[in-house]
């Protein structure tokens, strides 16, 4: 891997990490899904996975108090994006298709976190599932809107920078 590639991946990790911390006060409103979808489309599978692993590692270091049990589910949740977009949903290209993917992913990501949350907090499964619905909806719609409006301009701009 060239130094330029390493610098690019490091910048991508920094952007996803910083935006998440900056938006932490807003429940589940973030650009993380948009950015990971973008990275998945711009980078190879291996590089996208590397960005996600480093991002989850940094996030876990910061929120270690929340419990290490969350690390596998966080990884599983975010890695699902490159896995799906490089396999079964490989043909999704337009911002609308990817926005619908992001919408569904918002709920799937929420469900993936439930086992760890139930294990850690000892909250019964059904109450947790019900209480989480509005937060999943916020994430799903936040994903939908950010991908719908920002995916194409960001993709074009980064492609331009990469080619120059």
């Amino acid at each position, binding site marked *: 891997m060239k130094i330029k590639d390493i610098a690019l991946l490091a910048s991508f990790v920094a952007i996803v990490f910083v935006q998440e911390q900056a938006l932490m006060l807003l429940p589940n409103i973030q650009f993380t899904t948009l950015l990971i979808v973008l990275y998945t489309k711009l980078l190879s599978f291996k590089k996208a996975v590397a960005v996600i692993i480093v991002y989850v590692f940094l996030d876990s270091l910061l929120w270690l108090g929340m*419990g290490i049990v969350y690390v596998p589910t966080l990884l599983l949740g975010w890695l699902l994006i490159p896995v799906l977009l490089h396999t079964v949903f490989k043909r999704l290209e337009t911002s609308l298709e990817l926005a619908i993917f992001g919408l569904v992913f918002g709920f799937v990501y929420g469900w993936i976190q439930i086992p760890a949350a139930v294990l*850690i*907090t*000892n909250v*019964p499964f059904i109450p947790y599932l*019900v209480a989480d619905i*509005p937060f999943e909806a*916020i994430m799903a719609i936040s994903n939908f*809107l950010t991908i719908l409006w920002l995916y194409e301009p960001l993709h074009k701009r980064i492609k331009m920078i990469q080619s120059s």
Partner: protein
Amino acid sequence: MKKTLIKITLTVFVVAILVLVIQYFSQTGKAESDGTIIFVLIDESGEEIIRQSVDYTRLKEDGDPNTLFDILNSEFNVVCAGAMYQKDETCSHSFTNGHVILSVETVETDFFNSYIEIYHNGVYSNKGISLIEFKDKDVIELRYKQVG
């Protein structure tokens, strides 16, 4: 132009759905009439340290409906979670789904390692303290719970 119009339409549609979902899940719990609530507080050792009947009116002085949180907060020493889950003794911050209680009297939690469970008439509550609908003679049990 057509593409932008589709995007705007979809945006308005999904935002409207989100507003409806949030409204549905964050309706504050109200009482049908004036009455009495029995509050039970259980500490970390499982010991019942408070069992107290509290009279309430359906409406507050300002005309807004009384919630369980309002009644609890007016009768006991309550500390809530702030926006970053820090202690907020003023309880001025309310989340999408109402207040999160960190402490009641001597039972203290920090949200991350421990929290307060709510049982409504002996049943684990699916809703937070601000959202529970209640009636006369209901029993609200607040139990200290260790995480993990």
